[in-house]
């Protein structure tokens, strides 16, 4: 824990976004994580993303479970709503919150322990339901809060701090999500904000659950030689499978098309539900980020070579989200008068009568 809160002193050239807020206005309280934790870097990327998107802080709901990762919502956007739930239950809580108020912007921050062990079932069903949220897995391969035991994402052969190798096969959240029918699947690295921020921006425009697996080294228990989740290993094995730009709706598109990256082919652009566009540049030959099968086999092939492919890997804007599937009203249930939402016992009896 730092000795002081972050000084209020600001750089004189600090810019303001469309809401008149500076990036400092999207910060939270001081992190109590270890110095150098990848999670803090992801927090900084989230702060930057919200600021660049000019998201009103009061429209954000920060959701989490238990673990180092799940502490981090405290460290960004102090002015947002939040719910720190039981271990692994974050996806269930978001599903409920989202059902009641679809107008909030949900970001769930979880870890490999929280999501791939105790909460795996909840994660799977949130993906199945396509709950509209950004689901960040801060993936470091260990249980940091309990002193560094292997988690379910630890690779076979990856060594613990004391030199012991992991022998159980890992759950790969990206492959898992693809197999469960996820509609937005990405992987990034905490040490690469240039990649992570555009992915986060695209994720907030996605009409369903956007899963981002972020390799986030545990500087205390998993940053040594022999670990496959260290800073050095991640840098050496990170393979940028795709590179993408996020172009928000409205006038900014013009500026982007006119930019030096004029060679972007329209064929690899995906238009999001809200009118924004994800432009893929530098895609490998034959890679189609909208073809689940091809992405699946591509990732299998690359990972078989020991690489960690990163980028916005799969994107499908055609699938309905939980509200469309359930035919709920357009506005938040919370804004519907109680009498209408709950018509009373008489109506219930009438309904039951129909089933007799």
């Amino acid at each position, binding site marked *: *824990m*730092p*000795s*002081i*809160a*972050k*000084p*209020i*002193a*600001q*750089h*004189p*050239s*600090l810019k303001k976004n469309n809401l008149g807020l500076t990036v*400092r206005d999207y910060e939270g309280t001081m992190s109590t994580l*270890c*110095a*150098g*934790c*990848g999670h*803090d*870097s992801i*927090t*900084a990327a989230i702060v930057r993303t919200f600021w660049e998107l000019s998201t009103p802080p009061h429209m954000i709901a920060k959701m989490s479970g238990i673990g180092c990762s799940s502490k981090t919502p405290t460290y960004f956007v102090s002015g947002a709503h939040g719910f720190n739930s039981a271990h692994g239950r974050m996806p269930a809580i978001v599903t409920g919150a989202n059902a009641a108020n679809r107008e909030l912007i949900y970001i769930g921050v979880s870890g490999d322990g929280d999501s791939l062990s105790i909460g795996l079932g909840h994660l799977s069903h949130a993906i199945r339901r396509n709950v509209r949220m950004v689901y960040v897995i801060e993936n470091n391969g260990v249980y940091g809060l309990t002193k560094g035991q292997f988690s379910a994402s630890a690779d076979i052969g990856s060594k613990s701090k004391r030199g012991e190798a992991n022998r159980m096969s890992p759950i790969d959240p990206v492959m898992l999500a693809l197999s469960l029918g996820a509609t937005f699947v990405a992987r990034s690295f*905490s*040490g690469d*904000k240039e990649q992570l921020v555009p992915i986060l921006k695209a994720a907030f425009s996605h009409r369903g659950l956007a899963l981002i697996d972020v390799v986030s*080294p545990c*500087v*205390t228990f998993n*940053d040594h030689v022999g670990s496959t989740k260290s*800073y*050095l290993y991640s*840098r050496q094995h990170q393979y940028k499978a795709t590179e993408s730009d996020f172009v928000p709706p409205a006038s900014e598109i013009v500026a982007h098309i006119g930019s030096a990256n004029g060679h972007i082919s329209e064929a690899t652009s995906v238009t999001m539900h809200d009118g924004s566009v994800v432009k893929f540049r530098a895609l490998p030959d034959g890679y189609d980020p909208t073809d689940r099968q091809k992405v699946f086999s591509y990732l299998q092939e690359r990972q078989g070579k020991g690489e960690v492919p990163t980028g916005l890997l799969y994107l499908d804007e055609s699938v309905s989200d939980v509200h469309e599937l359930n035919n709920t009203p357009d506005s938040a249930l919370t804004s519907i008068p109680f009498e209408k939402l709950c018509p009373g016992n008489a109506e219930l009896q009438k309904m039951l009568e129909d089933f007799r």
Partner: protein
Amino acid sequence: MKPTNVHDPDYFHKVVDCQWACPTHTNVPEYIRMIAQGRYTDAYMLNRASNVFPAILGRTCDRPCEPACRRGRLEEGKPVAICRLKRVAADNKDDISELLPAIPKVKNGKRIACIGAGPSSLTVANDLMPLGYEVVMFEKNSKPGGLMRTNIPSFRLPEGVLDEEVGNILNMGVDIRYSSPVGSLKALVNDFDAVFVGSGAPRGKNLDLPGRFETDRIHLGIDWLESIAFEHVDTIGEKVLIIGVGNTAMDCCRSSLRMGGKDIKVMARRPRAYFKASPWELEDAEEEGVEILINHAPKRFVVENGKLKGMEFERLEWDAEAKKSTVIDTIFLPADDVILAIGQDNAFPWIERDLGIEFDKWDMPVVNKVTYESSRPGIFFGGDAAWGPKNIIWAVEHGHQAAISIHNHCQGIATSERLPVGMKLIPQKMGISEWSYHNDFNPSSRQKMTHVDLVNRFKQLNVEVEIGYSAEQTAREVQRCLNCDIETVFTAKRCIECDACIDICPVLCLTIARDGDEVDLRGRLSAPAANVEQSLYASEPLPQTKRLMLKDEDVCVHCGLCAERCPTAAWDMLKIDLSIPQVGTICLQPSNPEPVHA
């Protein structure tokens, strides 16, 4: 971009903007911390080591440190009140007589003449007396201090303060000879091993306009102030015009108010942005009701029957850069007295031109900028006498440098010989997230000096207007200092590029970026580094990606969070302790820029 050479003491010295800007390189952050700890005497002595006159300068310094202060570049835009805090140290110190250097009873046999008893001569004596030199000081007036006594009114600098600090030097055993103007340098040179000319710039500039010599009510500013200091004058007419708008003009107008003047106007040729006076001196004068008129060029003195009636001025209109003017009209302003404060000149009628001292085309002695020696070996110049009017703090620095040269000259060493600046970097880490300095940023605004009210301050000439900081004001002001001497020092080979320092920095100083030239890099940092006066600290290529760690020094608040969030101590906070050589600096600290870890 080449990795920054942090082995060069100048690099980290420059980060301490105040210390770098001070001609004598006073260790400002260190003495401010001492004041914060209540160590006033230590703070005073640390000041004295470099600037010799902390109590005097704490009231009168030109403060080159303050416009340089990093705090002034942050949002609020106001520097730390460094000068006021210097006075706090002086006001609260204990008896320092035991702390002054011992003066050897057995002299080294070398005799030095100092001409004039102003700040530069006194500094020479201060530096040479402890080494066993005999110093003889010739002063034309009956009291010492030079312009500090004659030109700075006692409502700004009380006589007692001046006497004490000047006395500290004279009491080292200086052979001071009052009322002894030097009429001939030739008569002096053979009796001494070296001569230091610190006679100031004693001749006020004249304004030779019609009517100038038809009355005795037109005064030269510095001469008039001197007459007040020696109590030769105690009145002035009710209507006074001051010509010129430098600091002497400010002293003249404020003195006029205390001598019976009622309607005081300061007449400036150019717009306010081009005034020479320090902003705070202008403020103080205007607070007292002095009127400052811009764009008025003196045309003639109006004298009728030998009696001054006033002056005619041309009203001017300037172009945007205030280079060219056109005359709008001519106006008359009545005056009982006119005081000319339009500058000073050096004058050396008492230096024979056949002594081997070369004079330039402006009839000024040619003085070496490093050694302060004239073209005749053994004769040195300093203070205003060297290159015209500057200020006290520069005079002190001249004195220090001249003393080194004089010592070299007397010991048969080349006068140009100078010891290098030494540097120590001292770790400040006391534990995890624990530093030996107060690293939190304090958002207090600059504390305002309280003044004696506008009735009581005029009751006597010598009522000091500035009351000084209260204990509460001091406590707030010391915490505004950013501790720029606690340097952020980077060791590239330890960095794992986790971005923690970049994410935590409140003022976006840090960036990890691909290599490029400096101009290119300045444009692609976390925040643009537009202030090219401030260095960009570039690391060696980082181990994992060969990118560079870059720090824009411009607005770093030295909070130490980069070092606290660094998991590998690649960033560390180290205090720079500079050794600025003076005469008598015998054992230099070794230059040790590699961080030392316990």
